[in-house]
């Protein structure tokens, strides 16, 4: 650990002049870290230089009136439902005791590994008119007309929430585990009932985490193209693709993405404003955990039934269906190449997770040391990438990289003449990882930033007064406090990259095929059942970080 990093952690006092110089240095580093994420945002802003008025008129007349309310309904619905699911499940597994709790503790995370579009496809295949369930209902009752349609607003919201609630679950759980029980205990000694304690103390204290999780869910929902396409539910994102691929206008597609981002900025500002002034720091005394709440037998049964239901719907049943398809195709499709697919997926996901967590940690520390407006705006912009539809972001980032590559190539040619080697920055793993950083910085940053709230100034001061300073402060005091948050961030990013398609597809080096690329190859011409094999492999590989998380004890408190 360098002394500079230690200084960063401590917020080292210095003379005013050098402090000012130091401040700008940190802001410059933050800016540097944000560059990859800022590039696509700037591409989008630049597209407004030439607004495509003709297309906008068409959109305003025929597309936007439908797409804007649709998108709002979807985002609000998915955010609410996954917020309620994630928070209540986290509450049950972190605060209460019931049979099977230890299993569900980590098992409820597993739906994270199923790509949303895969869950959507399985749900539509199983529950639509021609699916096995309704066919059976018709065979037994003669009609299935009363069965609610899955390809509807409600169906889309429920399925997407089942796929996305783990973001909230993971963050809320980490909040409850590290402070909830103690807070609740304190509330109860002050005379509040358990329910009142939950509502008035534990939940409000966990708010930054829950809000962070919901923000991720909302952004993911806005950017989603695959799942809404399966439901044929028109959103802003489908409109963006329609403009691009149907009307051949990349610039109008970027402009629409810009409007989408504006919505996100406003939503995040409202959230931030509503908790302005509140401080959410609290300490943790690991040596003295408060006991879990004991539930009455009836409540234990209810809790078990609820968590089992969610687990079945969001993970067990879909995976069974996928496994069924995968087994049918394994004989013809499974071969030795799969080891390569898995290995490459692991390298990308592992490398990306490491890169993004380190960047998030640095950014969060800089934000803590220099709570300057500049850094805040930078980070806000840099975490926008998660709300940009994947392909638009991939193109918005790749095109500037290619332009840079062309410039370098020209320079090289004029320097070395015809002997100059050909360079291709954009077809390298480095660019793929940078693009992941642009897309998933929010996923790493939100948990890390929430976690850093917990390391209060007073903890630092106490440690310093005991002679623990510099690198030791980071190692002995900060690291244990941040462990859960870092592990959470790494897991989320890892699994997200495993599932990511558009960036991997367009920026991967030649021959660099991954599991997600396999899914693309199969689904491109509608062979969804064949895509089950790589999808199952994604789920199984996604279990690795979850298992590590559990093993390392960072997860199980």
């Amino acid at each position, binding site marked *: 650990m360098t*002394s500079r990093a230690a200084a960063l952690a401590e917020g080292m006092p210095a003379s005013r002049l050098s402090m000012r110089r130091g401040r700008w240095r940190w802001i410059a580093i933050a800016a540097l870290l944000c560059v990859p994420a800022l590039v696509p945002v700037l591409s989008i802003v630049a597209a407004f230089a030439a607004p495509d008025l003709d297309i906008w008129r068409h959109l305003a007349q025929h597309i936007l009136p439908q797409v804007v309310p649709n998108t709002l309904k979807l985002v609000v619905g998915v955010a609410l439902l996954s917020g309620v699911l994630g928070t209540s499940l986290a509450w049950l597994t972190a605060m209460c005791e019931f049979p099977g709790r230890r299993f569900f503790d980590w098992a409820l995370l597993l739906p994270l590994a199923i790509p949303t579009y895969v869950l959507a496809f399985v749900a539509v295949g199983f529950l639509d008119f021609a699916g096995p369930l309704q066919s059976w209902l018709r065979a037994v009752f003669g009609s299935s007309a009363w069965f609610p349609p899955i390809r509807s607003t409600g169906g889309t919201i429920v399925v997407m929430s089942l796929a996305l609630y783990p973001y909230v679950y993971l963050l809320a759980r980490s909040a409850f585990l590290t402070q909830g029980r103690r807070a609740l205990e304190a509330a109860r000694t002050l005379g509040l009932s358990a329910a009142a304690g939950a509502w008035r103390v534990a939940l409000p204290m966990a708010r930054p985490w829950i809000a962070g999780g919901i923000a991720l869910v909302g952004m993911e929902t806005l950017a989603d193209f695959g799942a809404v*396409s399966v439901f044929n539910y028109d959103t802003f994102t489908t409109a963006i693709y329609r403009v691009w691929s149907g*009307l051949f206008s990349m610039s109008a597609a970027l402009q629409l993405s810009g409007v989408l981002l504006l919505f996100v900025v406003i939503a995040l500002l409202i959230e931030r404003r509503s908790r302005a002034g509140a401080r959410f720091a609290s300490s943790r005394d690991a040596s003295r955990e408060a006991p879990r709440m004991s539930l009455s037998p009836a409540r234990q049964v209810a809790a078990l039934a609820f968590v089992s239901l969610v687990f079945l719907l969001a993970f067990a049943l879909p995976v069974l269906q996928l496994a069924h398809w995968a087994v049918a195709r394994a004989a013809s499709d499974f071969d030795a190449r799969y080891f390569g697919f898995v290995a490459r997926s692991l390298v990308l996901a592992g490398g990306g997770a490491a890169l993004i967590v380190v960047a998030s940690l640095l950014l969060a520390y800089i934000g803590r040391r220099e709570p300057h407006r500049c850094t805040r705006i930078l980070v806000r912009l840099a975490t926008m990438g998660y709300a940009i539809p994947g392909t638009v972001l991939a193109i918005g980032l790749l095109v500037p990289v290619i332009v840079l590559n062309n410039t370098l190539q020209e320079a090289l040619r004029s320097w070395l003449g015809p002997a100059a080697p050909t360079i291709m920055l954009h077809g390298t793993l480095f660019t793929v990882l940078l693009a992941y950083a642009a897309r998933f910085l929010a996923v790493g940053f939100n948990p890390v930033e929430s976690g850093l709230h917990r390391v209060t100034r007073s903890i630092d001061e106490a440690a310093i007064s005991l002679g623990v300073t510099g690198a030791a402060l980071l190692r002995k005091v900060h690291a244990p406090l941040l462990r859960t948050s870092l592990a959470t961030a790494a897991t989320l990013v890892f699994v997200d990259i495993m599932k990511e398609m558009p960036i991997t597809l367009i920026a991967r080096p*030649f021959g660099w095929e991954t599991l997600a690329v396999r899914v693309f190859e199969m689904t491109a011409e509608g062979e969804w059942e064949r895509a089950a094999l790589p999808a199952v492999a994604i789920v199984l590989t996604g279990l690795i970080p979850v298992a590590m998380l559990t093993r390392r004890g960072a997860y199980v408190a």
Partner: protein
Amino acid sequence: MNETLTESAMLPSAARTDLRRGRRIAALPLVLVACLAAWGCARAPEELVVYSARNEQLIKPLFDRYTAETGMPIRFVTDDAGPLIERLAAEGANSPADVLMTVDAGELWFAAQRGLLQPLDSAVLEQNIPEHLRDPEGRWFGLSVRARTIVYSTERVKPEELSTYEALAEPQWQGRLCLRTSKKVYNQSLVAMLIAQHGEERTEQIVRGWVQNLATDVFSSDNLLMEAIAAGQCDVGIVNTYYFGRMQRDNPDLPLRLFWPDQQGNGVHVNVSGAGVTAHAPRAEQARAFLEWLSSAEAQGQFAGANLEYPANPAVEPDERVAAWGAFKASPLNVAQAGELQADAVRLMDRAGYR
């Protein structure tokens, strides 16, 4: 830098080791980047590079065969046509790509329109590929034909009731028609070709008629659409033949059959999966030879057969499962019109409420 040095000079030795280790760790990513960049640049002196929107399992076997026969290695990257075209455009003269391959004529037209493909003067290609399945200026060539035709339930529809795409807009199909989403380029091309035939006004009436006849919301795939017909949700729909072929292969008792519309008129709407040589291809000559080979009798059977499509080269017989659906008259209109009129088609479908 200076500042850091003085800092380290003032530190106790343990911390200095710490610092040095930190430096070494910090250098690692740089080394990694250098390696990766070098790896990305490495390129065999003689090889073809293909950007392909046709998926790997359909093209790789052919690439391997070509390499075995000619010794020319082929490297490729697959993605949707949209991103591939943007990438090609941005790369410009520095692009490593020799060939662009897509699964829709409109996409090839768009790439040609942006100046990304070069005209070829190839007697072989002109002889092998019929005129209406290639660019009039020779910038791209269809390699397999995908017919988008009518599929119907053998239980609830008699083939005599069917006639044309246009007739599906008539009231007798009220509540009996299923369609795939208009977001899929295949439907955009179909409507573009209807515009080429009838003009916008008449086409809009037809599309409105379709929308009124829908039994249920449009589907996201041809497979789901056919399953819906088989399950009785609707009686008739429009699909690409190879989706039907695949489903029939997996389930020979499928209560569905294909119908060739408009046999007295313009014929069945067809689209192509095809390819062109890129404007800045480093190996344009070899790329042309490769396309010529793909259009030859030798390769055509496999190119089309792998996906149960029709060979673009009329001298080559389709796969026997495909031939079993019967011969048909295909639309003689040049498939390039699918691209020219695509944006109009999309706007028209938006106006008509066809999602």
